[in-house]
């Protein structure tokens, strides 16, 4: 187990370095990159920051200040060195500390991601199991129809519709009222219940279908037939079946939450929740490279960390999985 964990952690580290390298290359090495200096010309980001009609020496000053005038491998080495120590640099745009900005935004994104994921599990798993157990019943067909509608609705549309009805028409929700859990739990809940539902609808539909499929598949397995044959109560049979039918759900759940922690851009935008996704949008529109890099590193970290966690939990749930 220890060896397995060390190996996985090393791989996680390598993956993060690779992600940083790829993002860095996009902005600093590839032609057209905002940080790249080409044929002795200033980098676009420095020109952009120098404002209107700048004197060439001002552009040079800015490049020097940002370190863009140094060889690219030195820039990368310095960035990587700092990033591994947890220093993600300062925003080009507003001079804030990128790590602080991400940490400040993290609680909002975590509230959104975990809340929504609980909602979709609470809907997806029971509906999926019941549909599988009552196959071809009205309940099964009804929930599959709902699932089909759910997966077909894009979040941006559903979100806007939800705001339109619950905010503008019914007045039971108010966009832009988010407050941190630690400051005002009531306000926090009031601002999040609708985005949780919106974000959960698509995933819940997906999980319903997945759970139903898995349960049906497991029910045809030999050990279930054996369990039934030896006269085990149906409830016990189902308990056995669920254990292996739900392990893939753990994998999916881990990955989905990991991705959401990197920022639910559309949902955060529509409901004005100040999370990491909104930070990313702002950074991209203003060519704020340190923030873009910082958010990407964090997003990659979450996906890799959740992956690792899932593997460990998976191994604990399913004895067939071996560590080597």
């Amino acid at each position, binding site marked *: 187990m220890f060896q397995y964990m060390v190996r996985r952690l090393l791989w996680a580290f390598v993956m993060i370095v690779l992600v940083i390298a790829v993002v860095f290359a996009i902005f600093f090495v590839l032609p057209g990159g905002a940080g790249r200096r080409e044929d002795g010309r200033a980098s*676009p980001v420095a020109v952009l920051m120098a*404002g209107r009609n700048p004197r060439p020496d001002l552009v040079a000053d800015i490049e020097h200040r940002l370190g863009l005038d140094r060889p690219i491998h030195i820039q990368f080495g310095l960035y990587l060195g700092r990033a591994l120590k947890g220093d993600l640099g300062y925003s080009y745009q507003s001079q804030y500390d990128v790590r602080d900005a991400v940490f400040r935004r993290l609680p909002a994104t975590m509230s959104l991601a975990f809340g929504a994921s609980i909602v979709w599990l609470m809907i997806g798993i029971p509906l999926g199991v019941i549909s599988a157990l009552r196959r071809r019943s009205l309940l099964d067909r009804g929930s599959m129809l709902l699932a089909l509608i759910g997966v077909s609705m894009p979040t941006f549309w559903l979100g806007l519709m939800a705001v339109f009805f619950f905010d503008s028409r019914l007045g039971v929700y108010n966009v832009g009222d988010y407050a941190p859990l630690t400051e005002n739990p009531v306000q926090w809940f009031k601002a999040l219940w609708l985005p949780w539902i919106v974000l959960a609808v698509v995933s819940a539909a997906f999980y319903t279908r997945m759970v139903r499929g898995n349960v049906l598949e497991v029910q045809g397995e030999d050990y279930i037939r054996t369990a039934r044959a030896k006269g085990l109560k149906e409830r016990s049979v189902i308990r056995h079946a669920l254990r292996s039918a739900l392990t893939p759900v753990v994998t999916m759940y881990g990955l989905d939450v990991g991705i959401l922690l990197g920022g639910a851009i559309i949902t955060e*935008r529509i409901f004005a929740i100040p999370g990491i996704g909104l930070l990313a949008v702002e950074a991209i529109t203003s060519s704020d490279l340190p923030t873009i890099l910082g958010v990407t590193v964090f997003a990659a970290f979450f996906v890799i960390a959740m992956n690792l966690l899932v593997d460990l939990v998976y191994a604990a749930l399913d004895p067939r999985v071996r560590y080597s």
Partner: protein
Amino acid sequence: MRDRKFLRLFAALLALGLIAAACGGGGGEGEGRPGTEEVSEEDIPTGGTLRIAGISDVDYMDPGAMYYTLSWTLARGVVRTLVTYPAVADFEEQNQLVPDLATDVGQSNEDQTQWTYTLKDGVVYGPALGGEDVPGVTGEPITSGDIKYAIERLFIPSVGAGYPNYYEDIVGVEEFQNGDADEITGIETPDDKTIVFNLAKPVGDWDFRMAMPAASPIPRDYVEKFDKKKDSDYDQHVVASGPYYIAEWTPEEQITLERNEHWDPETDDVRKAYVDTVDWKLGLDNDVGVEKILNNDYEFGMDVAPSGPALERVVNTPELKQRLINEPSLCTRYVWLNTTVEPFNDPLVRQAVNFAIDRANIKRVFGGPITGPIATSVVPPGMTGHLAPEEYNPFETPNMAGDMERAKELMAEAGYENGYDGKVLFVGASDPPHDKIAETVRSDLEELGFTNLDVKTPAFPNQYTQFYSVPSKNVGIGTSAGWCKDYNDAFTFLDPLFHGRNIRDSGNYNYSELDDERLNEAIDRAAGLTGDDRIEAWEEANRLATESAVWVPWSWDNETIIFSENLVNPIYNTFFSHIDWVVVGVEQGAGSN
């Protein structure tokens, strides 16, 4: 100046062709246009909160660094300048600057190389950002030395000034910037009330430059320590001089302004500051923001603006249309031709292209009349030097839809009767509606006889950074260029975009690389004049620039702003292209949730 709404508007404008007819021209001399009529003072409610819906944050809070239109809109109520734009509805009158911190507008010597201002009595600083009373600053008088430091720090790299170029004409700037001098010797402060700017060459629009946020007073003793850091963090400590101070700034989330009790209304003839608090919510989705303004949950949108179906609904609903401001944003969009690339080095070919291009069709694919009128010359309406289309339209064609016959005659005259089959690099942008604009221009050029166009359409705004601003790319024709004024004088258009001295290897804005001696002289001459002479001189330079035919201007953009039923006296100000919120009132409790 950078306008964040610009980018967002492109995406949805295509859908607007249908509503174009319903909206009329906008910006014309119509009666009762929202945003252009003042309400008498006794009808404006006082007190309460002005709620603003926003998407993007300010670029900087530091007035020396801020460059976005929305930041300047905020600055209107937080900092004061020596002179400023009056809060009146008439656009021409808006350009007649009035005293603000100074007792009078700038007094210049005969050749406009020396400008003098005297500060009013009773003008003092308010709290710093967050409401902190700074000892020795808050409640203390604003001095001429503070104005001097405001200008000096624009040349300190840590500040990241947005437009130091407008102050480079002061004597001694270079020495100060190089570190050879501790101060800008050309700025004299004989006493705490008087400031004299000595300029290396005549500058007739100095008052306009002194009305920009960068020229607002900065208390040196307090701010120097922030500016000495690698990157100045005065952003977090901005000291108010206007009627409001910044009580809260949570980046990308919220900006709150509260009344600055140290501001004396007796010293301020412009800002009426009727509301007590400004509550500016950031990070909203555009469509959600629009819906909430229409629902009277916010008083107006900062960069939230209706587009697509929402705009269609507003335009087609009479009650809502009364809450839509559609006025000039002082921006021109154009197709440009490179004078260093064959065959555009020949003025006749450039004229031919000016006649060939169907500007009406470009306007149509861009979104129709609500996006502003079709441009017929370089300088947009609302600025000095503007020429109305009915007075001046050198490349006039029926409905501005192009005249291919005339164009082909000019091509033949230039020796290209069979067209031009050499390779020409043609750069547009891939995002809608820029892709459609590139397509309509390409089809016109091919009809004119250009048979070998090398078309490139990078994602917006990479056409600027990768192609237009880089002369070595040898772009022949660019179809997605636009420029907005920095202040309401034609200098901010004609000098950076047309003067030969501004051609640069990178960060170049004179994309056409035009270096025309007559035009250079006309620009230099106009720049040193004042009053009516200046207006006439800019009109002449505008004619020369337009007739050089290096541009095919096709849009003078309009700004689109919606406001709530509760907002009283929302007059539009052309300087920051938004509602002049320092004179609005808010009806409390009516219609909002």
